């Protein structure tokens, strides 16, 4: 086995940095998309009309019932097929990044919708009532009165979910997308220094996620005082 060779990290710093950028990009898009569509899904699930709430509930329950990694596989193989079906042409691979983005937004929107639904339900019903009484319509009542309060209540849970999401970005490794973990694996295979690289990946993930968790804790304490 011999000694550890930590220099390998420095030699592959460019590839590792590129991988980290891919991870962060995927994280940011999935987070934004997940919160946006998650909010719409939560509102749909709470809608009075069954034609809206039942399909939304079905989608959320389906996505939450399958392993995340399976969704990533599915979209990697399915997206080109769907594209070819609509364009009539031979399905061209859309590439691992796009398919991963689609899978992540779908899955995260289902997860976030459950958090946001709880957030909306935590707001006393008199609040939208007062908004309606002023003449605000549904979207205004949601946008100005209910959601700002719901997000405030749910912020710690949403940030915790974001930390989990960031860790989950490493799953794209299965569709050969070079995220941070993928880049480290590749470097490890090329140099035979897989142990050092995986340790490095673990340390980086730990530092980022631990720092984020601490920040969430601090935020929670501040929100508790403000209330």
């Amino acid at each position: 086995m011999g000694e550890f060779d930590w220099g390998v990290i420095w030699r592959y710093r460019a590839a590792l940095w590129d991988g980290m950028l891919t991870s962060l990009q995927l994280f940011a898009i999935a987070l934004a998309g997940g919160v946006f569509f998650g909010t719409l899904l939560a509102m749909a699930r709470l809608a009075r009309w069954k034609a809206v709430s039942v399909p939304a509930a079905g989608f959320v329950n389906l996505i939450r019932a399958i392993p995340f990694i399976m969704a990533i596989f599915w979209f990697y193989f399915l997206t080109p097929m769907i594209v070819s079906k609509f364009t009539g042409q031979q399905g061209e691979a859309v590439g691992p990044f796009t398919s991963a983005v689609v899978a992540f937004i779908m899955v995260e929107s289902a997860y976030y919708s459950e958090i946001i639904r709880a957030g909306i339900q935590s707001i006393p019903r008199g609040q939208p009532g007062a908004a309606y009484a002023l003449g605000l319509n549904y979207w205004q009542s949601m946008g100005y009165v209910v959601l700002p309060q719901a997000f405030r209540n749910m912020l710690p849970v949403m940030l915790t979910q974001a930390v989990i999401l960031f860790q989950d970005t490493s799953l794209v490794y299965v569709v050969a997308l070079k995220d941070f973990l993928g880049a480290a694996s590749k470097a490890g295979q090329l140099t035979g220094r897989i142990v050092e690289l995986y340790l490095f990946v673990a340390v980086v993930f730990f530092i980022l996620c631990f720092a984020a968790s601490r920040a969430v804790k601090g935020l929670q304490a501040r929100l508790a005082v403000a209330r």
Partner: protein
Amino acid sequence: MPMIELRKVSKWYGSFRVLTECSTSVAKGEVVVVCGPSGSGKSTLIKAVNGLEPFQEGEIIVNGVSVGDPKTNLPKLRAHIGMVFQNFELFPHMSITDNLTLGQVKVLGRSREQAVEKGLALLDRVGLASQRDKYPGQLSGGQQQRVAIARALSMDPIAMLFDEPTSALDPEMINEVLDVMVELAREGMTMMVVTHEMGFARKVAHRVVFMDQGQIVEDCTKDEFFGSPRSDRAQAFLSKILQH
């Protein structure tokens, strides 16, 4: 034509009937107090007036517009009916000024400056001008309810609905809210008020509606009601709440 007219309004929660053929009206400038034991349907009835509570049968006409008609633009109708709630329902994430201007700007389309001017004038009127930059959580219950009244008035309402406005208040704060309401009544505001405050009813009500078990049992002038309520249920109710 009355400002608010209810014709045989009935409502069910599932198979449970909460309102049974309720009919009454509020003329322009009239103050009608709705009272009755808890669970008698008073709150449900007053919330039906601006469509916050749907009902299945009957008709409610406000200023010539049918509330129950699916074609009615409810937000537009509600914009001109002020409502004050038992739990104030100020928006806790907004400053007092923003609470006073949200509806004016987003619903009535007033400019921010106009809305602030109007809001602050009303805030001054309820004696809270100095609280403009605070948040609802920093005010006492009585102060919050006065802000809520100012918020409703900022929309230039043609009628005001009060749903037990003093029930959630500590006793020493009840009067500061009632004083504002009495003043409003004396200015000729059309008001429908669900309350147990019989002193308020005596002072400014024109008519009293007594409800029990989802039905309007009495609907008469104030003097008739306090003089000689015709029904046993109203007599029993009055003797209970007037004891102390």
